[in-house]
């Protein structure tokens, strides 16, 4: 453990405008699709309209004869040269992992899969010719519904023999981190409270702003690949591992990348296909997808059924939690697809001191678009379910949702705290964040208004939703990843180059796609080395300049990558010190470093770090045996995850006449430890909130019975805009992390993780008095209205005093009013 650094700062904590914004916002920059190479060819993909079909034949003659067409390749043509999409995290040794070829030759397993690639002189010619490729399919039965898939009657991949990919379990008794959950539940059935619920995490589309694009230049010593990716380093590894190209012959560049939200942490069929084609033809090639293609072929997120059984004493003290997840992986096990739901294993217990806990996860293959990480990846799903069911417990006990949380949460004096799932939370203060949030929100006044609206029978009801979340991010200690059979480590690397003329290059292996790394890293290094903010250049995203790295996802860049930078900076100082001593004719032990200056203690003699950089460049007068460089590298492997937390409060108005909901107020108090740049944090929180709120209210990837994505464009996939949101109040409490030098915690996903249950809890709270205890997401006006209608109609049947719902054999034990209108294929 590292003690938190309390040196004075001038840059850290300052709300610097982001350096990168001018070029990113104006678009006058190097987006992959802006790259033009001499003689470059353009690709268009022919995609399957069927969810599951045999490819009988592919007629390419007409397409080949079309104007400007250079080649048309089918899966058979690319067979041995196209590599394969990898799964980096087999969650069990016997996980069923169907081979995922970029361009399959004989069978497609989801609609949108590539069956042929057209190469032409212009993108328009390629698109025209793609229309002429004649594919003869034989449709196969498709399995689309997770619960249907479990029966193994229709198989997503007939050769696999089953749709069940893997089963993964964590049991607190077995691993020695807690008690026996079945015992706790059995006891509660006798003398306590048992709450059983099944929640639905709908499928979402990551909807990044920049569609994916890849440019490949196969000429030259190294093959150069530009791609709109979050993971250039992992892509390079995957290319080397699966395409038979030595890693040293591959250069991957992620130029400016327009968002990802996890959606670009994949190595994609489109990337592999473009590389394969460029190598075959020996010419630069570009492929840029359309938004319609993004919707069906870039991976989706979420998509789980979550069964929870919560046992408690009559006073609301939780005694156990059992979780049974069904997670749809779609047609293939994506790079970390199987692992995403498993990340929930350590999060369902959240901020609470549950004595017994069990997590079960069954991953399932279906004939839908593959599923992988989407902002929060496994933690929003877990947070949603636990925060929803804690509200149900509060309702059962008859206390305020805040009170039930207070009764069960870890108190600030109990940190570091090892949870029932086996994670050790380093720091936090749930009481402080909650107190501040309640005050900012005006909780009591809003409760009073709610009461008044209920009593007066106002057609517009008010509900208050609470979400006290924590999450684990900063992926990840390599040893932990190893113990989970993850195929890589979780370290991050950084280099600092002290240029002769006084400016500094900071090289980071964490590749941003909109996060503002260039600004934040500059602030950190400016303080650390006493170099002006403006004189620092941050380089990233090119395996030639930033050869080592594990990229950006899981709120890791600052807490892991930032720490690597801190360590590299400290090494620069250490390397400069003997040179400073030599030039000052002083002993190393007598030197002090502060604000960019080495000084000799007790004298006014000193020398600046940039002067040492110049002296080192000249190398005319260095101490004997000292190399002429003060540049330094560091690779940091985190000792623990990062555990930000916060209290989010949401007030929703529900128009009971139409089911329409509207947000009245949203307050969040997040504790993300030390804040490097409050403006960037605000941006992350706001964007995260909107994405989480969108899951609660608006977004959902819906398929029809044929396996066609119905919400396949932004007409039907209703993304919100600024016009749909309100002003959020976002504040902070600060419990510095004790596991990194700067005391920082991740913030990239916090808003998304926390907000979804706050919103749904508020909606349910608004109509609970009508007899409603769940509404399925997205809480469309239609679902809300139908819930109200059906609750009204069976309200006459008086509730039995202490009846507790139990799971039926197959039906989800939801309120019948929950509105299961997810289409035929959930």
């Amino acid at each position: 453990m590292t003690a938190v650094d309390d040196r004075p700062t001038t840059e850290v904590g300052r709300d610097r405008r982001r350096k990168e914004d001018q070029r990113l916002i104006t678009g006058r920059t190097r987006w992959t699709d802006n790259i033009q190479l001499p003689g470059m060819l353009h690709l268009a993909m022919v995609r399957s309209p069927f969810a599951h079909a045999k490819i009988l034949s592919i007629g390419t003659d007409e397409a080949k004869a079309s104007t400007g067409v250079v080649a048309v390749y089918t899966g058979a043509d690319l067979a041995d040269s196209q590599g394969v999409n990898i799964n980096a995290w087999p969650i069990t040794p016997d996980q069923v992992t169907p081979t995922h070829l970029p361009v399959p030759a004989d069978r497609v397993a989801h609609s949108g899969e590539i069956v042929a690639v057209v190469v032409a002189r212009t993108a328009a010619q390629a698109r025209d010719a793609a229309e002429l490729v004649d594919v003869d399919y034989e449709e196969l039965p498709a399995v689309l519904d997770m619960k249907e898939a479990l029966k193994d009657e229709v198989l997503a991949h007939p050769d696999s023999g089953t749709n069940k990919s893997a089963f993964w379990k964590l049991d607190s008794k077995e691993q020695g981190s807690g008690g026996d959950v079945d015992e706790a539940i059995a006891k509660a059935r006798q003398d306590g409270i048992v709450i059983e619920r099944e929640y639905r995490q709908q499928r979402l589309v990551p909807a990044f702003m920049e569609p994916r694009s890849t440019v490949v230049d196969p000429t030259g010593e190294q093959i150069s690949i530009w791609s709109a990716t979050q993971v250039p380093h992992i892509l390079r590894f995957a290319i080397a591992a699966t395409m038979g190209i030595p890693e040293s012959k591959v250069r991957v560049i992620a130029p400016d990348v327009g968002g990802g939200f996890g959606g670009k942490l994949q190595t994609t069929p489109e990337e592999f296909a473009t590389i394969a084609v460029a190598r075959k033809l020996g010419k630069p090639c570009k492929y840029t997808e359309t938004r319609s293609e993004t919707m069906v072929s870039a991976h989706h997120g979420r998509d789980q059924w979550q069964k929870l059984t919560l046992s408690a004493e009559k006073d609301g003290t939780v005694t156990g939690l059992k979780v049974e997840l069904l997670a749809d992986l779609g047609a293939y096990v994506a790079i970390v697809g199987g692992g995403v739901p498993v990340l929930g294993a350590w999060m369902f217990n959240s901020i609470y001191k549950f004595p017994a806990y069990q997590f079960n996860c069954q991953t399932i293959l279906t004939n839908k678009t593959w599923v992988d990480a989407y902002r929060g990846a496994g933690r929003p799903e877990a947070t949603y379910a636990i925060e929803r069911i804690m509200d149900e417990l509060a309702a059962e006990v008859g206390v305020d949702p805040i009170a039930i949380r207070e009764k069960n949460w870890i108190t600030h004096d109990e940190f570091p705290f090892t949870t029932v799932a086996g994670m050790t939370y380093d720091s936090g203060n749930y009481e402080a964040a909650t107190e501040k949030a309640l005050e900012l929100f005006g909780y009591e006044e809003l409760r009073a208004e709610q009461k008044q609206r209920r009593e007066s029978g106002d057609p517009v009801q008010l509900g208050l939703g609470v979400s006290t979340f924590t999450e684990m991010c900063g992926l990840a200690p390599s040893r932990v990843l190893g113990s989970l059979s993850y195929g890589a480590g979780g370290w991050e690397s950084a280099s600092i180059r002290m240029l002769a003329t006084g400016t500094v290059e900071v090289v980071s292996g964490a590749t941003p796609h909109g996060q503002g790394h260039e600004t934040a890293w500059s602030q950190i290094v400016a303080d650390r080395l006493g170099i002006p903010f403006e004189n620092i250049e941050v380089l990233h995203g090119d395996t030639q300049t930033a050869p080592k790295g594990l990229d950006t996802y899981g709120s890791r860049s600052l807490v892991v990558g930032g720490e690597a930078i801190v360590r590299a900076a400290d090494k620069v100082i250490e390397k400069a010190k003997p040179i400073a001593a030599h030039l000052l004719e002083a002993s190393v032990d007598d030197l002090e470093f502060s604000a960019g200056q080495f000084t000799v203690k007790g004298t006014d003699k000193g020398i600046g770090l940039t002067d040492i950089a110049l002296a080192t460049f000249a190398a005319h007068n260095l101490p004997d045996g000292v190399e002429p460089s003060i540049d330094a590298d560091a690779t940091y492997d985190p000792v623990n995850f990062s555990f930000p937390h916060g209290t989010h409060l949401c007030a929703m108005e529900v128009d009971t006449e139409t089911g329409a909901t509207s947000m009245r107020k949203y307050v969040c108090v997040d504790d993300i430890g030390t804040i490097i740049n409050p403006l960037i944090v605000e941006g992350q929180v706001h964007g995260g909130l909107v994405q989480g709120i969108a899951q609660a209210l608006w977004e959902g990837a819906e398929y029809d019975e044929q396996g066609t994505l119905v919400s396949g464009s932004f007409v039907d996939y209703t993304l919100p805009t600024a016009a749909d949101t309100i002003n959020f109040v976002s504040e902070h409490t600060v419990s510095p992390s004790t596991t990194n030098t700067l005391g920082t915690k991740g913030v990239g996903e916090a808003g998304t993780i926390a907000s979804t249950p706050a919103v749904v809890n508020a909606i349910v709270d608004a109509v609970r008095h009508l007899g409603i205890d769940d509404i399925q997401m997205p809480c469309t006006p239609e679902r809300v209205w139908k819930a109200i209608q059906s609750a009204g109609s069976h309200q006459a049947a008086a509730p039995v005093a202490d009846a507790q719902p139990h799971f039926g054999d197959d039906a989800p034990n939801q309120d019948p009013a929950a509105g299961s209108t997810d289409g035929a294929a959930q």
Partner: protein
Amino acid sequence: MIPASFDYLAPTSVEEALSVLAEAGDDAKVLAGGQSLLPILRMRLNAPEKVVDLGRIEALRGVRDGGDHLAIGAMTPYSDVVANDLVREHAGLLARAVETVADPQIRHRGTLGGALVHADPAGDVGAPVLALDATMVVVGPGGERTVPATEFFHDLFETAVGDGELLTEIRIPKHTGWGSAYEKFVRVSHQWSIVAVAATVRVEGGSIAEARVGLTNMGNTPLRATAVEQALVGSSASGLADACAAAAEGTNPPSDLNGDADYRRHLATVLTRRAVQKAMEG
């Protein structure tokens, strides 16, 4: 997304446009603001050989005072319709509806005529035009004819405007002094109407003397709720619910991700009441 290639023609008069269309036959498509046509071309749902852009025909643009009616050129962009003082004064309902269409960018390009000929049942201009008893002016090889709004909308995406014909003008009888409201129900702000209700009323002495109600997305075409209009006569603000209860009668709304037909019928009654209520207030 790249459309299939086509020839682009930009006539500068209606006559020229008609002759270009006559020559091209079935293979031509008229382009107005392009806000519906271009997505269709780019998604390759249609691939005409010729696209005839009406954008350079000045005569088709603008709002004229025609005495007892307003004459709005088919190529008048939404944004001009909303900003026009004559429209706001004499056909307030149209302005109220048009300001809910999509977003400012789309309202700067999309045209009133283009939207009417496109005739998407979820489009926001059909119902107000119908409710305001507008007349459409259509020209073709056989000359000019006028079509009452009640006969203009034939089916989903089908109107009285035939191949080789152009909609040139929309004539709206003045409804000076009428109150109006357009109640558009959507999940996100830039969405097409799930259901919307266009209502305009003339109030005399606190009760309704005349009412016009149009429904958006309650069937394959915009609809007039005539039974409601009649029932509303004589109603005061407190007695609207009964009169509006029949708003969805005889409608055949779609079922989709935003709601099934029953839900839409329910919405139509609630929104009709609200629209009329607001219209009474001004």
